[in-house]
């Protein structure tokens, strides 16, 4: 059964929306913001790819938004955009919709000073609003309320494999017929720890050491949602998802996707190029767009959006950020694209799009 991507909503350091993402991929500007990161040695100023959610006010009154944290707003904006993109914002056009929100760090992604105790007195005796906003399922709950959607609603996490794991469940639900469509996405707020990690790495190694010898990406934040259906109507879709694999590596040959595809993959600062070597066989072409959206646990959601766009436009975007990547746009020529993520704890996940 084919699973098709019918709508995508995206917000990140490059801006908001698929056209903005496409412009950034075609060489458009991606301007970092300078963020003040508190450390034990004092505040440091670090360039980061931050995302703006002011456009949420186009959809809902400020009074409804007032209590929502940045984490919730990121998720809500991308979720609503994905539904609009798929023409399914109205409840009577949906059938039964499942919602799955994947997040690496959840609502507490940035709400703790990573170098200080979280459970200090102020946090323990927190206000009801702050406590409500701090639960991992806050974004998914507000999305269901905003969309008036009563289908299954899950918030899931597994650090940097959160998004591929969520996709696995989304595809299973569609194949079971449990739902008619799934709104599945990744949300992560800027992590001060990731920003600090970039800063330390840059001080020690300069800007090299990224995947394939390219630059290491800045810490990023954002949200990326997909509206999926089990649907054979290819003309309405960006691309089809033909396979999702998620698991844990235990040595031995990697569980690779079918031959002759493009692989989009990144590891941010932590994954080493050596981790990827077993996957880099002669029949695959490699590209990385991490400098567009940055380093965040749900980065593979952005890779999936870019892969979907590539399938729709039938081209691979230039990747001059990576030493061995495509230099200019190249025709996709019918090759499938695998979005690969190698994660912490020897986990792996890839999604095959065509």
């Amino acid at each position, binding site marked *: 059964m084919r699973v098709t991507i019918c709508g995508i909503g995206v917000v990140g350091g490059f801006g908001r929306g698929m056209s903005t993402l496409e412009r950034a991929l075609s060489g458009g500007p991606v301007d970092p913001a300078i963020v003040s990161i508190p*450390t034990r040695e004092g505040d440091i100023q670090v360039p980061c790819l931050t995302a703006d959610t002011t456009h949420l006010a186009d959809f809902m009154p400020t009074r409804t938004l007032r209590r929502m944290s940045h984490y919730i707003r990121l998720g809500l904006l991308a979720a609503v955009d994905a539904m609009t993109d798929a023409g399914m914002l109205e409840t009577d056009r949906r059938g039964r919709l499942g*919602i799955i929100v994947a997040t*690496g*760090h*959840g609502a*507490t992604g940035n709400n*703790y000073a*990573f170098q*200080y105790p*979280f*459970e200090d007195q102020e*946090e*323990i*005796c*927190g206000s*009801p609003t702050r*406590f*409500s906003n*701090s639960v*991992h*399922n*806050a974004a998914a*709950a507000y999305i*269901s*309320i905003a*969309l008036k*959607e*009563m*289908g*299954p*609603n*899950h*918030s899931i*996490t*597994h*650090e*940097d*494999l*959160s998004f591929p*794991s*969520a996709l*696995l*469940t989304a595809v*299973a*639900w569609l194949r*079971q017929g*449990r739902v008619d469509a799934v709104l599945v996405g990744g949300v992560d707020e800027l992590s001060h*720890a990731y920003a*600090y*990690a970039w800063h*330390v*790495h840059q001080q020690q190694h300069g800007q090299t050491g990224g995947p394939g010898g390219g630059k290491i990406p800045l810490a990023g934040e954002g949200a990326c949602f997909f509206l999926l259906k089990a649907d054979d109507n290819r003309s309405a879709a960006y691309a089809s998802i033909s396979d999702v694999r*998620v*698991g*844990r590596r*235990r040595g031995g040959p990697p569980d690779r996707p079918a031959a002759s595809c493009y692989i989009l993959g990144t590891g941010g600062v*932590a994954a080493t190029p050596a981790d990827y070597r077993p996957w880099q066989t002669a029949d695959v072409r490699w590209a990385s767009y991490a400098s567009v959206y940055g380093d965040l*646990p749900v980065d593979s959601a952005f890779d999936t959006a870019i892969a979907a766009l590539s399938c729709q436009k039938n081209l691979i975007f230039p990747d001059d950020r990576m030493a061995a990547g495509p230099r200019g746009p190249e025709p996709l020529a019918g090759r499938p694209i695998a979005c690969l993520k190698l994660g*912490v*704890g020897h986990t792996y996940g890839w999604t095959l799009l065509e």
Partner: protein
Amino acid sequence: MTPVAIVGLGCICALGADYQQCLQSLFAGQRRFGLPSRFPAACEVSQPVFEVPDSFLQHDSVPGNLSRTCRMAMVATWEALDHGNLDARTLARHRVGVCLGSNIGVTSGYAVAQNDTDAFLLPRDRFLATNPTHLLADTLDLSGPQQTVANACTAGSDAIGVASAWIDQGICDAVIAGGTDELTPRVYFGFKSLFINDEKPCRPFDRDRRGLNLGEGAAVFVLASTDFCQAHGIVPKGYILGYGSTADADHFTQPRADGKGLRLALDESLTSAGLAPDAICFINAHGTGTPDNDRVESHVLNKMFPGRPFLSTKGYTGHTLGAAGPIEAALTLGCLDRGRLPVTAGFETPDADLPAQPVAEPTMIQGTVALSQNLAFGGSNAVLVIGKQEEPGCV
């Protein structure tokens, strides 16, 4: 949905250090509550909780330096493997995933101030040291997918639901599925600020109920396909026959007054199991003891299962958050096995405003299928259909 076999299960909470102890204490009517004993000295506590004593966590194969959330999950997992007469090597040869429900397990990484380690590794290091799903997969050397469901009070039931989907769709041969959450000051005082806790031991469905008591614990199931069971000559201890999951889409902290979310979840669970409401022998309600929750459940259960016995076990365990669904599913199976229900601890005076009352006397039941339901902060509703046998029937 194809029935998913329960190969073995483990359970740890205030009732007992293992599944059999939990069932014994349950039917003996034991309630072990008290004021929180582990919070920082500066915290003023007045509301009772159901803690797991440290003695329950002594286990040769469980390192003492892990978080309580992880230790409880591991203790329950070792018990589940033992209960199912399954060793880790057999599991490692198959495609086995891990899916747990936990709320503390996904934030405790940020709750511990590390000493001066390189912040570069901090989020990943913290994850590796404190995430119970990862620890189980790593300890058992499993190759399948992993995921933690963080759906507040339905996290664990939803994790069992996800695991069932992975098995149903052939993604996994088996899944270690369940839930775990320890008691923390952050949640205790967070609930207090929302006026959700009771100053006294909780009183599910009682006229004078005022709120819930938090608890802690873990329950882990080894779920598998019937093919896997046949291949290994395993006789399942029970089955997950169906699963329903919905969202209220209404208010962030209070359940829908009209109960529609719960009704839809109940409908879906029965449809997925291919059963009519008649087939259900009893319902293990969420029954936290809050005025709103219990009111909604009583109305819905009265409408959908008029006259069917239901109970709440939270008067024995407290509200164990992500572990609630799996612990209550385990106790539900235990009731099915023994053919009887314990009283609803904490329930004394019927509420005239509620159309249906929970069991107040030990009650015999006949039949092989029951439901266990949970409602969450944020609006999720989850229902598991639990059966003693693959072909359900109700006498």
